[in-house]
């Protein structure tokens, strides 16, 4: 059997194909890695957004309710109600409702403490 000499063009083709294959593998790995990082960043961003929302609501609650000397006006109550629902957190909403529905001063004090505790716990680090 005669050994045919391999043409130079064939070698070049093989090299090119190998290079392209290596490139594909490299970019696939990079893509996978970046996708992972992007997911991490997305989670971090979501967490940050939630933190900001909870923090804003807590500030509003302290400033407009806890520090209020008089009745809280309907505009502020509307803002608070919208803000608490915008948090999209059932636990907070439920605790907020408990506070709103308080029938006695002692109960309101207890629910305020629970609400503040819950809000602070919701702010992740």
């Amino acid at each position, binding site marked *: 059997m005669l050994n045919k000499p391999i043409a130079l063009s064939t070698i070049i083709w093989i090299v090119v194909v190998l290079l392209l294959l290596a490139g594909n593998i490299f970019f696939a790995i990079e893509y996978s890695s970046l996708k992972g990082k992007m997911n991490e960043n997305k989670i971090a961003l979501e967490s940050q957004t939630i933190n900001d929302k909870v923090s804003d609501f807590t500030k509003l609650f302290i400033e407009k309710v806890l520090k209020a000397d*008089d009745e*809280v006006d*309907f505009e502020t109550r509307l803002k608070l109600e919208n803000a608490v629902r915008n948090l999209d957190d059932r636990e907070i909403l439920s605790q907020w409702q408990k506070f*709103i529905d308080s029938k006695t001063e002692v109960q*309101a004090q207890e629910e305020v403490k629970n609400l503040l505790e819950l809000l602070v716990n919701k702010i992740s680090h």
Partner: protein
Amino acid sequence: MSYKFQVVSFKIILLVFVFGLIPLIVFGSAIDGTIGSTYKYAWGENIGWINFGTTNGNVHITDSGLSGYALSETVGWIYLDDVANDSEGNLSGYAWGENVGYIDFNPTNGGVVINSSGEFTGSALSENIGWIIFDGDYTAKTDWRPASARVCTSWTYSDWSTCSDGQQSRSIASSSPAGCSGGSPTLTRSCSIGGGGGFSPEVSLPPQQESLKVLINNGDKYTTDRNVVLELSAGDDVAYMAISENADFVNNSYNPYKETVNWELSDGDGSKTVYVKFYTQYGRESDLISDSIILDTIAPAIKEINLKDYFYSDEDVFLFGKTEELAEITLHWNKKYGLVKADNQGVWTANLGKLSAGNYSLELIPKDMAGNVGLTKIVSLRIKEKPVVPEPPEQPSTLEQPSIPEEPSAPEEPELPEIVVPEKPPEIITVPEEAPLSMQGQWGLLSSQSINNFVLAPLPKNIKDLVKKFPELGKTFEEVGITKITDVGKLKDVELNLPGVASISGLPMGKLSAQVKQQLPTDVIFAKAGKELIDFSIGLTINEKGESQQKITTISGKLLQLAIKPDNPVETIKGYVVFNSRKIAENYPKVLGNLTASLMFADSNLAKEKEKSVEIEEKLVLTQFEYTDSDGDGIYTAEIQAPVIEGEYEIITVMDYKSIELGQKEIRLITIIDPEGYVYEKIGDKEARVSDATVFIFWLNPDTNQYELWPAKKYQQENPQTTNATGKYSFLVPEGSYYLKVEASGYPIYEGESFEVKEGSGIHFNIELKGKYWWLKVIDWKVILSLVVFALLLYNFYRDRKRNKKIKI
């Protein structure tokens, strides 16, 4: 001269001419003012308006006075040339009118002044026509300014003086506007003979950019008022500023730097940017800085409302419309409120949910981002029950089936406007008209009791007991403001010194009177030494939990006499010496105060009560001992030897009460064991202990005021002490002034400096002795070799000089 050169020269001259004249053009009116076209009137109580700004009147105001004519429709022309100005705007002298006679510009109870804004204020008086008032909406106003209100905006300086002592200077030759103030009268710069020099750094540097800041209305995004407050900040090097809404600062004036400026924004709603430039006193200007705010003075309006004529009670009430972009609309209906927000195009939607049948009034109140509230729009909502469609009755098949009545046709949809019907949003969030009880402002939402419990709670019981026991401690706490539980933290790093028994009475425990014994505090361990005559200074620390700990410091191997008075009859009192650690804590607490409380103690309790039997934790128990009360006075004593090895120990005293109910109590006394002192001689970097050295301690006898050999026998000790091979010695002495003396064969006598002992402290300095011929030990072969080489060198120099002298001869 070439043509090109001539052209360049001409351009330079033109530029110099133009720019040289600009200040004169801009500020010329500040020294020779006229009257504006709007604000030009004074009011005569009997003659009506007097116009100071007529074209033909040609009124001018200068530093020296007024000129021209004012015109009254009633009395004609009034000649002003004799009205004088003191350059600060205080007018005097008389105006004259052919029909009114003289008008005094500086009468008693009156007078006319032009203020720093150029406004005429005050009143003039005519004998014939009475008062002429310069106040009101259209009072005369000029662009002339009092001399003190004119701030220089440009300066021309003289040439630099000749260089002298490395400095040269120049002064202001002229400045504009004329008669203005401000600017540095003299500039100096460093120079050197033969040229050079340059501005000193402070003259040549512009204001520091990083320190410059401007905020409109404290950084607000919107304002509804043209009048805003600018907050400016700049470094110490800034003296002037210029403010404008034009970045090119055309026709702008300069003012002394102020941190707060009231500013009127230009007319017309929209985004407004205020630019500020700062200047040093030498005229160097900063880069431009700015802040923006949106001026919105127009309240929003509900432009469109789209809703059906009526809704069925089983469907959501949905409406939409248009208003100002991003405005909020508060909706009020059926005793509740809701809020919706318009989008960027001003389109808003509201889903009020289902309503029971009836007629409702819906109020819509728009409010824009700036806070402008628009007019309330009221619309009616009509809710109807949906008609029930009757089932067709069952009929025999033979009969002709009656026709089923047709469903009532749906009401025609109202004609919708051009805007696209938006998607129905979820039901609007509402709050009831009446605030819930928790928001009516009648309740304290934060429990004052729990706050008081924390902030104003009294000191813990054991600390209060301490205060009762040691009245001086109470005073100290009062002085440093320790009154509440939250103050306990202040005591964390503080060591208090409790008084001992002998330091007050001067007597050993056994010789105390029955009265003193009676008043002795219970459950406190008193540590003593030297036939009970030396009290150890008992340190008292309070940890973060508010628990107190006693601490003493003694010297290894010394005898300690411990005494305790239990608060209740005891079966036994046992003691344990427990090893804590070799390492003595380095951070000793700072001493807050020495408490020399009297022994008039009240009954109290320092010990920790133990519900269960006391368990000594698993530590190295070195000694176990028992307290005894041989004389039956209620005070239990024990004598133990302090551990030999230095370190931190604990003496745990456990009281086993006779009463089973009381159980046991324990008291812990932290005991720091210091090493003994020693006498040594230094050899190189090492220390050699000196044996057979005699160590004396002398004390200052307060009666004779002389130092005497301390009477150690009285305190169960020896003085002097002779060291063994370890060179060790130690004394436990009471409070006083002392000094040490050491005698050893082959060494000069050591006599230390005097020192003070506060209370029951151990003397354990390490004393270095130096041999009589100590300096001989310094000389070794290296030193000797160096000395020989040095001597040879000297000899060599000597030989050279001698030879040179011979050659000269």
